[in-house]
C-alpha cells in the first residue's frame, strides 16, 4: 500500500471503497486516536471510542472536507467529541458505569500537564495565566463543559466561558510563537 501517499490521496481512495486505503489510513492515525481516547476515557473504553470514531468518519464521508483541514485533525475531533459525550452521559450519576473508566477531570491540573508528552505544549500551557490554564486543561483533557466547569470552579458561567476563550487564544499565539505546527 501506498506509504508515500498523502492523506488526501488516500481519502480519495477510501471514498471509492478501497479497503486497503482504509487500512492505510488506520495504520497512519490509529496511535494518535487511541492515545487521545485513552487519555480521556481510559484504555478500556478507548478501543471502542476509536473504532466508532473511524466508523463515523467512514460512514459520513461527506462530513470531511480535505480542503478544510488535515484528516488527523478531523479524526481527533471526532474522537474527542465522542469521549466527552461518553463522560458527560455517565459522569453525574452512573457510578457503576464509571468504574470502567477513570474520570479525567478528577486529576489535578498540574498532574495532567506533567503527564503530557509534548514539551512545547507543556511549556505553552505553563505560560498561560493560572485561571486560563485551569479552565482550558479541565475542559479539554477533563472533558468538562462550560457549565460543568462553572460548577466545579464555583464561578459564573460567563467567567468560565471567557477564561476558556482567552486561554485557547493565548495558547494558539504561544504555540505559533514557538513554531509548533498544525497536525500533519
Amino acid at each position, binding site marked *: 500500500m501506498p506509504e508515500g501517499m498523502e492523506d488526501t490521496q488516500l481519502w480519495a481512495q*477510501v471514498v471509492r*471503497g478501497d479497503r486497503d486505503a*482504509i*487500512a492505510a489510513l*488506520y495504520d497512519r492515525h*490509529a*496511535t494518535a486516536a*487511541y492515545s*487521545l481516547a*485513552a*487519555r480521556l476515557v481510559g*484504555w478500556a*473504553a478507548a*478501543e471502542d*471510542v*476509536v*473504532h*466508532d470514531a473511524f*466508523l*463515523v468518519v*467512514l*460512514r*459520513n*464521508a*461527506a*462530513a470531511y472536507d480535505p480542503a*478544510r*483541514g488535515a484528516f488527523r*485533525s478531523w479524526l*481527533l*475531533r*471526532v*474522537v474527542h*467529541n*465522542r469521549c466527552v459525550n*461518553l463522560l458527560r452521559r455517565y459522569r453525574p450519576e452512573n457510578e457503576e*458505569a*464509571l*468504574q*470502567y*473508566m477513570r474520570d479525567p477531570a478528577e486529576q489535578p491540573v498540574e498532574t495532567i500537564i506533567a*503527564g*503530557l*508528552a509534548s514539551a512545547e*505544549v*507543556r511549556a505553552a500551557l505553563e505560560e498561560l495565566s493560572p485561571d486560563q490554564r485551569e479552565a482550558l486543561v479541565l475542559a*479539554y483533557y477533563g472533558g468538562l*463543559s*462550560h*457549565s460543568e466547569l462553572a460548577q466545579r470552579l464555583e464561578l459564573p458561567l460567563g467567567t468560565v*466561558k*471567557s477564561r*476558556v*476563550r482567552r*486561554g*485557547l487564544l493565548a*495558547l*494558539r499565539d504561544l*504555540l505559533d510563537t514557538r513554531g509548533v505546527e*498544525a497536525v500533519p
Partner: protein
Amino acid sequence: VTHDEIRDLLAGYAIDALTAEETSAVAEHLASCPDCSSELASLQVAVDALAGAVPQLPAPERLRARLLLDAPEAPTIAYGAPTTPHARRSRRASLPARLTAIVGNVGTRQLMRRAMSVAAVLLVVALSATTLSALSAVRHSQDELLRDRAALGLLTSTETTNDLLTRQADSLPADAHGHWFHRPEVMTQVVVGERLPQPGASQRYVVWMQQAGSWIAAGELPVDATGYGRLVVLGSDGSAVRTVVITLETGPASQPGPTVLLASSP
C-alpha cells in the same frame, strides 16, 4: 444569536465544551460566516496541539481487525450540508452498541419479552479476537465472512440492546466485565468478555443462557492474551433469554458452575 455571541463561543466549540443548543447554533452560523470559520480554523491549530500532546500508545492489534471487518464496503456519501462531530451531537446518537455497553445501561435495560413458545436451537460459533483477525486476513471462506459480518452488524446497530455483564467473582480484576448484544428478530447474539484472567490448564469459560427455566450452554468463550473473548450465537434473537452468565468450568457440565460475570433481565 449575534455574530459576536457566536464568536465568543468558538473556543468552547473547538474543545467540545458547549451545550447541544449552543453547538447547533455555532455550526449553523459557521456555514455562512467566513470570518468565524477562519477564526475556528486558527483555534483548531491549538486544539490539534493539545490532542497530539498526550503520550502516544499503540492501539491494540485486535482493533485493526475489528475496524476492517466493520468498515462499510463503500463510505456513505451523505448529500446536503456538511456536518461536524459537534453538530451531530444534537442528533440522534449513532453511538454503536458496543460503546454504550462499555459503560453499561443497567438502568435503562430493555425489558425482555418473556413469552417465547419455541426454544431455538443454538448454533454456536466461537470467535476469539485472534480468529477474527485471521478471518479478516485470509478471507478464505465467503460463507464464514458473511456470517461474521452479520454478527458484527448487530454490534454496530443502534437498535441493538446492550446488557452489561457485571463482575460476580472476587478473583476477577476490578475492571473485568462483559457485554451481551441482542436485538429482537435478529437471530444473532454476541457475548463478549473483557479483562478476564487466563483460565487454568483444565478450566474454560462457558457462556450459559437461561430460558424457559432451563440453562443452555451457549458455548465456550475462548479468551486471548488480553483477556478478551467473543462468542457469536446464531439461531436465536435472545428474546426468550432471562439471564446470561459466564462461568468458569473445569469439565463438561449440565448446569452452570461458578459464575464470574452476569447479566440478567430485570
